[in-house]
């Protein structure tokens, strides 16, 4: 079988393996862990991380980072609930918000490519603008505005025992994998993240793929926020906060290089699952939710460290 891109399959497989091991371990400690309803719940949680990390994967592959994810997520949930309250149809609202998220991401991408603003600065700035807007929209701590019905159905309804959202996620994962592995866009994205100079001199569309990556991140984050609001049933300013670390950690655990140029979305999927299981493990140890942050940080360090060691060993 021909192999085109860096051998990330082992990393993805390892990530799934680790996820499985953790799951088994959790089940031993607490048999309910493997109950059907719990697993459904875990899958739903993982899909939130998965969508938040979808764009983040593309951005990181291109050699950047998106720190505006939590705010665009919050925008998705909050704005949709406001529009629902004003009578707009959910479907229209979702489409609009995904487009708006994409537009915001495009602005970030343009800043990074055309103005050569460092991604961290650009996306933190954009995040601040979105935050300011959300503050203006004026929430207090939470609105109990009803979450969009569609979102609720996505996370609650099931087909063949799996929540709808899992199928949606799968579809996106397949699409992302196809995009990355089978299209010119994907090649250009990997090339740009691996070595921008090489990509440019070889004629890759460096600017276009970068902007597209950030645009995708904005759109995916908005969508993730809508999903999240559907599940939680309410929206609040900080609803996206945990997803900054978890989206980046998922990408790292999946074996991608945080510097760009190698990785895959399947790896991120594995990372999202692993992190979700880890998060669910904490209560079984009577560990506070605060440990989740600590776990994210440690996982990032571990994943990056292992990546470096593996890379050095491979290049001997």
């Amino acid at each position, binding site marked *: 079988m021909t192999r085109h891109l860096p051998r990330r399959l082992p990393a993805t497989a390892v990530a799934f393996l680790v996820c499985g091991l953790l799951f088994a371990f959790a089940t031993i400690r607490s048999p309910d862990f493997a109950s059907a309803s719990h697993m459904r719940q875990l899958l739903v949680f993982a899909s939130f991380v998965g969508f938040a990390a979808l764009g983040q994967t593309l951005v990181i592959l291109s050699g950047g980072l998106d720190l505006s994810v939590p705010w665009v997520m919050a925008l998705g949930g909050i704005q949709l609930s406001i529009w629902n309250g004003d009578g707009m149809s959910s479907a229209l609202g979702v489409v609009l918000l995904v487009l708006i998220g994409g537009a915001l991401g495009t602005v970030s991408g343009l800043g990074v490519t055309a103005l050569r603003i460092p991604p961290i600065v650009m996306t933190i700035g954009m995040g*601040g*603008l979105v935050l300011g807007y959300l503050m203006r929209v*004026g929430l207090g701590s939470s609105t109990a505005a009803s979450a969009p019905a569609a979102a609720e159905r996505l996370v609650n309804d099931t087909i063949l025992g799996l929540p709808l959202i899992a199928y949606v996620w799968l579809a996106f994962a397949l699409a992302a994998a196809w995009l990355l592995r089978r299209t010119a866009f994907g090649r250009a994205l990997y090339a740009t993240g691996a070595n921008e100079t090489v990509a440019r001199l070889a004629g890759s569309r460096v600017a276009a793929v970068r902007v597209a990556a950030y645009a995708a991140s904005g759109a995916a984050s908005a969508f993730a926020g809508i999903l999240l609001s559907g599940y939680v049933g309410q929206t609040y300013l900080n609803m996206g906060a945990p997803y900054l*670390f978890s989206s980046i950690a998922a990408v790292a655990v999946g074996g991608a290089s*945080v510097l760009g140029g190698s990785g895959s979305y399947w790896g991120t999927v594995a990372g999202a699952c692993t992190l979700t299981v880890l998060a669910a493990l904490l209560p079984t140890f009577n560990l506070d939710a605060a440990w989740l*942050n600590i776990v994210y940080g440690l996982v990032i360090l571990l994943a990056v460290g292992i990546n470096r060691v593996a890379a050095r060993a491979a290049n001997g």
Partner: protein
Amino acid sequence: MSALAASVRDAGFVLKRLPRGEWGTPLLLATLIVVDVSIQPALLDVTQIGLLIQTALVAVLLATAQTLAVLARGVDLSVGSVLVVTDVLTATKLGGLEGDRLALLPLVLAVGAAIGLLNGALIAYGGLEPFVATLATWAIFDGVALLVLPTDGGAPPQQLTNLAIGETAGIPNSYIGLALVLLAWFALRRSPLGVRVLAVGSDAERAFLNGIDVRRTKLIVYTLGGFVAGIAGVYLAASTSTGVPTAGDGLLLPSLAAVVIGGTSLAGGRGGVGLSVMGVFVLVFIGDLVAALQLPSWVATVASAAMLLIVVSLRSLPQVLARKETA
């Protein structure tokens, strides 16, 4: 010549050295001050200004920590989390129900430095990129802070609060705090260590050729940054008389914005804390103006973020236009 006089002369030296392009920020700050004072004449009062500086001091300290990292061609995403760790420690361990244990203050400050040391070790000796290392420690220590103090509360020692918001010889202590920060910076800038930091940030390879221990310099930079961010946390707890474990996340953007607006180069090697302090006050006066005009607080948030993006774009523009390479 006394250190104070030397520093004053240095301040003049710094101002004179500002290349033409750098007059933007001082001008912006001056404009904001003029506008704000004309709207609120009552501001022109030692105590009022002292209060302003008091609210600014936390941002000044974080911007200082961030400036150090940026000067060495890095970034410190964890400044906010170092702050909350020392903040909650101050609120719970130094004070609290068991009475005041001020003697532990050095330990709390040491925690800040230790986190900085961890960052520095990961970056300088572990070879991690600054954004990765400090992103991870950001997450970790945000969590640690929440473990120490899950919700707002705690009681920082009264003596610290008195120190933070009190006066000495008729001058609010916040002036002294600000002056100390600037003095410390000018001292660093004028020390061999300061020159080494700038050299490492400007061109690490050439710094190495000149016998500079690049790794050790970076280690020191991040350790110092952690120490300063730690002071910010203690100060915040003292001046607000409470501990807030979630205060950190919203402070990262202002710390970066202050550095960018002030004019320190994100590529390292150029700039300084003096500039970043100006950047902090630009943001502070924007906030004060917003409050004075009775505009909702979101205006200040948007203005800060917008200012960051606009300034960084403007600074990038000359290089982009004179670009050496095409698309």
